[in-house]
């Protein structure tokens, strides 16, 4: 996310002239990084812009700390190759998950940003098409420690979804309600996780978006807070956007302004709901559909949809990319991230997929 929800007007953005607060790291309006360098390292005398997340990422497989990608040398304790000096990618900057062969996701720093504030947590049963849980949270980069908060939020939500098996009375509608209730509980857990990672006196409390999709026995329920999205792209039917953004742009679209115009305006990325200490409300709006045939479930952050927002062209992109990857979910997610980076990689990029 390039945007802040609140800002104390103290100065103006050097790029667009929009109002920015002193604690903001990025301009709310245009996304320009404010005070690069100095803001990220206020206490160190050297120009050290290192912004390591403060938590260990325990669930990311350790085999990703392999040899140097550049020369094959050993990567030292400080994260640099001991032969050629190349900086090894931080685990937080790029990680992949694949809980079952048919469900996979890639979370990537992108090009423009100095750290990855997107986060993702996935779960799935082995039987293809049976049960999958996809959670994506996008940390708001104008707030502090959003990278830590977003990862904690995504994992907390996924844990709640993993644990829940309530099926209501067994009818489709009561099953859908039960899953929607689980999604609400997951959002509560995610919100608590964000608060747990916010220092009480933070001038700019950590915040993130939330989107989760649960597939269970032919029912697909998606819920969101903010502007991270879920889509259903059936092979033999019209693509469906499962979520409606909580954003300034979405409100404009609701009044009849075209999506293209709304999403390119100065406040296109301002979101109206989020998780965090200063959040007005974090109850996800849920959508339930019946899945009757094969297709792609896509859960993503704006790092992807910025470059392809409408459901139909995004569906084409996903299908074409999947075709180029032999239909393999992880390779497809990875290729979609590469595609977004090739478009500029202006933001962090997360793509989670389930092949149903």
């Amino acid at each position, binding site marked *: 996310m390039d945007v802040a929800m609140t800002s104390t007007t103290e100065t103006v953005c050097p790029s667009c002239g929009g109002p920015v607060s002193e604690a903001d790291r990025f301009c709310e309006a245009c996304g320009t990084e404010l005070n690069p360098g100095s803001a990220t390292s206020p206490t160190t005398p050297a*120009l*050290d*812009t290192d912004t390591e997340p403060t938590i260990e990422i325990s669930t990311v497989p350790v085999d990703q700390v392999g040899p140097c990608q550049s020369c094959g040398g050993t990567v030292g304790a400080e994260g640099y190759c001991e032969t050629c*000096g190349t*900086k090894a990618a931080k685990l937080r900057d790029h990680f992949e998950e694949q809980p079952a062969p048919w469900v996979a996701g890639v979370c990537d720093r992108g090009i423009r940003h100095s750290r990855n504030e997107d986060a993702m947590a996935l779960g799935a049963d082995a039987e293809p098409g049976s049960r999958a849980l996809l959670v994506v949270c996008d940390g708001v980069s104008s707030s502090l420690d959003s990278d830590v908060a977003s990862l904690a939020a995504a994992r907390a939500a996924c844990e709640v979804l993993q644990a829940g098996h309530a099926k209501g009375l067994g009818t489709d509608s009561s099953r859908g309600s039960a899953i929607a209730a689980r999604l609400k509980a997951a959002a509560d857990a995610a919100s608590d996780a964000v608060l747990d990672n916010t220092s009480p006196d933070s001038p700019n409390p950590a915040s993130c978006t939330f989107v989760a999709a649960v597939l269970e026995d032919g029912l697909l329920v998606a819920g969101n807070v903010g502007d991270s999205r879920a889509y259903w792209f059936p092979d033999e039917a019209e693509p469906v956007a499962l979520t409606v953004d909580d954003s300034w742009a979405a409100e404009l679209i609701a009044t009849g302004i075209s999506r293209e115009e709304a999403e390119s305006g100065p406040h296109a990325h301002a979101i109206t709901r989020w998780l965090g200490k200063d959040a007005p409300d974090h109850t996800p709006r849920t959508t339930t559909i019946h899945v009757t045939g094969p297709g792609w479930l896509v859960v993503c952050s704006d790092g992807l949809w910025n470059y392809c927002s409408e459901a139909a062209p995004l569906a084409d992109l996903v299908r074409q990319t999947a075709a180029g990857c032999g239909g393999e979910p992880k390779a497809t997610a990875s290729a979609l991230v590469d595609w977004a980076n090739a478009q500029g990689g202006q933001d962090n990029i997360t793509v989670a997929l389930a092949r149903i």
Partner: protein
Amino acid sequence: MADFTATVYQNEFLPDGGTDVHAIVTVKCTGAGAAGQSGSGDAGEIIIVDTSGSMGRDGVQAAAYAAQTALDQILDGVWFAVISGNDRAQLAFPPSAEPVMVRMDSYTRQAAKDAVSRFYADGGTAMGTWLRLASRVFATVPSLTQKHAILLTDGENQHETPEALTQAIQSVTGQFQCDTRGVGVAWQVDEVRRIAQALLGTVDIIPAPDQLAAEFSKLIQNAMGRGVAQADLRVWAPQGAEVLFVRQVAPTVEDLTARRTAVNPLTGSYPTGSWGDESRDYHVAIRLAAKAIGQEQLAARVQLVLGNDVVAQSLVKALWSADDALTTRISPEVAHYTGQTELAQAIQDGLAAKAAGDTATATTKLGRAVQLAAATGNEEATTRLRKVVDIDDQEAGTVRLKRTVEKADEMALDTASTKTTRVRK
């Protein structure tokens, strides 16, 4: 136990195609303790005094008094010896035909003072022989891990060829550290500085013999306050990179580049001698192969090493950026010490040109020195320069050579040329 810290100052951002990374690494030592008492070996101290004929009766008496004062400052238990030098070197204490040292105690201190009081002026000057004898004397005590000498001279090294002195210096380099002092104005700064630089010591002028005792006392006190016997600076640079230079830049400028010994193909070691509670700054310059915008790499790893133990480390980084605001920023520390290094060179070049009668070059170089001293806030250098040149415009570096200059002032400017000031915060 001594505690070392290393802090790096640099602008890690390089423009597209940029290759050269400069960094200042400040190494600070605290809790060094006293020489020979850190439990890692003994300390040895040798006092080398010029007793050539040119010293004269008064000069030798002043030198003997200074040596006695120095003996008072050597800690009990420290191994020591006194050498008197003219065109050959003699062991003045302990009284022995063979090289030998003794431990300091109240008895040996008094005996050494008595021996020193019998100094008399005679013969010529051959400092290479003094250094060689000192090395042989130190070698008689295998337990010594810290070996320090002070060398006093008053004249030119006339009874030995420059080549012989060079060979002697080379043969003892790495064997012991040596602070050198010249008394009066008849000695050659270049000659004595050569010894001090090779032996990781300092050089200075003592204009009058009656100032000798205080200076010797201070030198020995400093040496006794160096509880860390020997430390090395290690610089790792990535494969394919070139270490352009490694310089100590504070408290004095010393180019260490040529003193490298290889630890492994990517790592060089540079001796830094003994350490007390102090801080030293190093300027490291590395040339890398340029990488793509957005890429980051380690340009150098700078460590302080005791034996084989790394006691402090700093990382020098390179990050290629398209943002001019980042890449054009100049580290104030790097800029300051680049100026101080040029200042030292300008003073030495200016004085050499002046001695050779090249007034034009001398005026230009010393003018540049005045300008740099002002720009980097080195007021001591400005004060010393004022004794040699009349300054018309400090900022522009416009100066005129003074018609009459005290020889001692000129030598003081020369010996102090490598002294630097710290960055103004």
